[in-house]
């Protein structure tokens, strides 16, 4: 018998104390009486007592000592070790997306797999050790050589299946490593895949067949002013005639059915489909397969319109806006996102993502949003740059050769052709503060004439230190268009590059100007707050469905973007047979020591009996008085 908490025996210290108290309290009381005749005579009438009764004088002490011993044993949690009764178990649990498929009893494959593990653990002898390798979004060892049966079962119960495509190679290498150090371990692989060859593995296949249909590659294009929604539909288990339904998001965000089509999908082949809608625009649409199948996760795909996901507007302050208006239009900025204001009518504005000041500067810098200063007539407080004198260029203008990441991104796609006459008519020499962290894009005679940095509010600003109309050769050229597009992206980056992803993808969430924090609500309703210390936050999509990304702005407003994460193609096939799952090595036969710790109940019962007996004894003593 072993003890889980041997320190519990410290309670035995109470025994000598009890004995001492007993000795002190149980001394004979001396008394003189008129006659001891009757007392001595009574000896003749005392019944002969059986030897056990001789201890009745100290029964009080004996019971108290027994109670203390029982309590000490209870505290020390005894258990018996039985040689050769227990095993070492290693479970490899496949948590890939296909494990979410439902079986005939409406339980997912993953739940069935968990039940198998729980049953094995439950049936095992106490003292066994358990190791669980979980191949979910990533492969990790959840617990190793865990001896606590109940806790191990609790951890298994809490596991949930992932949605990503997870190869079992990492799990195999982890299991191989474990088997090498524990050759007597029984290794179980719980998966929905079949293997042609296995070795040192007890394969528990939880697949239950069933059909699976999937929609993928949904996109929407405008054709003759009408939306054409197209994509692919697949049937993975058999040829099937499928009904596809098209839904558009209404004003409240709820999806309203727009129409349906019937498509004959060949087994394991992608069959294209196309909806012709009467609508010309949408905020979000959804295509779903009407038929039920074993894996509902991939039966629909939602597409969000990127145009509506980046809704910040641009303000152009100019008395002669036609040139910039045309340039912005050429860059794809629709008129409804562009507000043009004459300089005289400009008052302090807010709520725009980008402010473009042409031949004009505001008295006060906007606190939020990016700014472009085109040929600023004077300095503005807080811009981190100051205007200077005008110069006629001596030498030709040159693009920066800097290898800085920001500079390279801003000059991406520029054609550096030295043969062109590349001079502005005149340029302004600006003083740049180091606090602006400016990147020079174009310089003339060593003086920066196009540069980008940040103002004192941390908002991005770009300065064109010349009049764009006087540098027509450049501004009308392709390089200016490319660079403007880069600067526009730099100043006014979209929150996300795309709205459709595959589960397991890592999305980049850009911190647009004026945003203070980013929160993500996952399809399961979990709130995630990615790190926003850099200009772009990264987040790995682990679930299937709609992720809502919300950016909190400085003016307490919020900007929300939805993206859809779909099940990986590899996980849509429900019946998969792979080549092999082999653990190398020769299994050993040695077992662990089993444990029985139900002794505790026995000791508790004994303690209760001892205390009850003592109570009866005390009662009898009381009755005698």
């Amino acid at each position, binding site marked *: 018998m072993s003890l889980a908490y041997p320190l519990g025996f410290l309670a035995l210290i109470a025994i000598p104390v009890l004995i001492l108290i007993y000795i002190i309290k149980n001394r004979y009381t001396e008394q003189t009486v008129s006659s001891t005749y009757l*007392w001595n005579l009574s000896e003749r*009438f005392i019944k002969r007592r059986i030897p056990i009764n001789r201890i009745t004088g100290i029964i009080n002490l004996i019971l108290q000592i027994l109670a203390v011993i029982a309590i000490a044993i209870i505290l020390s949690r005894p258990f018996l070790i039985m040689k050769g009764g227990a095993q070492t178990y290693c479970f490899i649990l496949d948590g890939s997306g296909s494990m979410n498929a439902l079986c005939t009893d409406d339980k997912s494959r993953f739940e069935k797999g968990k039940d198998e593990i729980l049953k094995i653990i439950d049936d095992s002898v106490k003292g066994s050790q358990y190791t669980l390798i979980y191949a979910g979004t990533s492969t990790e060892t959840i617990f190793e050589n865990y001896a606590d049966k109940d806790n191990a079962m609790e951890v298994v119960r809490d596991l949930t299946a992932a949605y990503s495509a997870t190869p079992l190679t990492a799990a195999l290498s982890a299991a191989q490593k474990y088997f090498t150090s524990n050759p007597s371990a029984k290794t179980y692989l719980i998966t929905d895949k079949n293997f042609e060859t296995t070795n040192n593995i007890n394969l528990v296949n939880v697949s239950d067949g069933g059909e699976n249909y999937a929609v993928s590659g949904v996109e929407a294009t405008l054709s003759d002013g009408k939306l054409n929604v197209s994509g692919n539909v697949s049937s993975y288990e058999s040829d099937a005639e499928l009904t596809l339904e098209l839904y558009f998001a209404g004003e409240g965000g709820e999806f309203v059915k727009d129409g349906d089509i019937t498509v004959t999908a060949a087994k394991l082949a992608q069959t294209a489909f196309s909806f012709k809608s009467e609508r010309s625009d949408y905020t979000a649409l959804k295509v779903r397969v009407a038929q039920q199948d074993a894996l509902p996760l991939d039966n629909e795909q939602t597409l969000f319109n990127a145009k509506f996901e980046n809704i910040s507007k641009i303000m152009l302050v100019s008395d002669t806006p036609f040139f910039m208006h045309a340039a912005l239009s050429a860059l794809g900025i629709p008129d409804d996102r562009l507000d043009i204001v004459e300089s005289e009518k400009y008052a302090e504005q807010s709520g725009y993502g980008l402010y473009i000041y042409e031949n004009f500067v505001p008295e006060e810098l906007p606190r939020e949003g990016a700014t472009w200063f085109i040929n600023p007539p004077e300095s503005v407080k807080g811009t981190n740059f100051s205007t200077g004198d005008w110069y006629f260029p001596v030498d030709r203008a040159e693009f920066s050769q800097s290898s800085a990441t920001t500079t390279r991104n801003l000059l991406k796609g520029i054609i550096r052709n030295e043969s062109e006459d590349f001079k502005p008519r005149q340029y302004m020499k600006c003083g740049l503060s180091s606090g602006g962290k400016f990147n020079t894009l174009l310089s003339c005679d060593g003086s920066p004439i196009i540069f980008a940095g940040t103002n004192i509010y941390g908002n991005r600003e770009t300065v064109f230190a010349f009049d764009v109309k006087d540098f027509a050769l450049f501004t009308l050229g392709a390089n200016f268009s490319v660079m403007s597009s880069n600067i526009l992206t730099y100043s006014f980056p979209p929150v996300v590059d795309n709205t459709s992803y595959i589960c397991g993808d890592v999305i980049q969430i850009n911190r647009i100007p004026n945003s203070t924090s980013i929160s993500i609500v996952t399809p399961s309703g979990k709130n995630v707050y990615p790190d926003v210390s850099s200009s772009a936050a990264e987040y790995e999509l682990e679930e299937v469905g709609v992720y809502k990304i919300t950016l909190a702005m400085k003016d307490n407003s919020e900007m929300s973007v939805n993206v859809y994460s779909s099940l990986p193609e590899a996980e849509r096939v429900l019946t998969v047979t792979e080549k092999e799952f082999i653990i190398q090595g020769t299994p050993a036969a040695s077992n662990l020591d089993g444990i029985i710790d139900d002794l505790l109940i026995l000791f508790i019962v004994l303690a209760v009996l001892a205390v009850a007996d003592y109570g009866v004894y005390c009662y009898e003593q009381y009755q005698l008085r």
Partner: protein
Amino acid sequence: MSDLVISEEFLGEIELLQTLLKNNVAGRFGGNHQSKTFGSSCEFADYRDYIPGDDITKIDWNAFARFEKLYLKLYLDERQVHTRIYIDVSRSMGYGKGHKGEQALKLAAAFAYISVCEMDRVSIYLLRDDKVEGIIENMLGREAYLNNIGALNDVQFGGDCRISEAILPTTVGYGDGLSIIISDFLTDNDYETAIDHLCAKKRDVLCVQILSKEELNPKARGKLHYFDCENSEKVYRKNINREIIKAYKLALEYATGRIREHCHSRGASYMLVSSTDKLNEIFFEKLEEEGVLK
């Protein structure tokens, strides 16, 4: 020892009591106790034929006139008896508060009063070790009683008591009254011989066994080491529990039964009293029940 307190009212009540003697009284003339022989009291007993030489003053002439034959009128004889009271004054009788000795002295005083009221002579003896000490002897009449009874206040308890060894050598009288032995009788020493001796002397014998309340119904429990007040070498050491108490009660029954049986077998009277019993109860209930008083 504190003075005996017996109320006058109580003495007035017991004044009316009479001792009932079982044996033929052979005391002196002039007492109140009827003898089985014919005497000269006023109480008519019988007739007998006249025999020449008889006192002619005792001839019943009325009977002669009727039957023409001489008959002599016979009257009952009344004798004065001698009540002897023996008090055990060993240490065991006088130990503790409200001890048995007090009750013994009160009983002796009350018995003595009843006797003097019956015009009997009374002697009170103390039984100490193997001796009999006469503390009041041949007391006769109430005046003598009142003059002498205070001597009981001076009784000192101590030592041992061997009843038979003490009584047997003394003069106990023959057929002349009641002998009362007051003791706790908690001893292995012989007391039966004394009772037998007194009975053989044609005396009425009354044994009064006095036990304390604690002796009759012990309350003590737990581990006790008892010393005997008469002899410290006599000890009793036990964890007193229900079983011991049961045995004690059997022992008590045995000890009281021993003397009771012996007394009854010899025609003597026996009475068990508690040291806390009231005198009224003892005299008007227990002694009347026992047939000692009426």
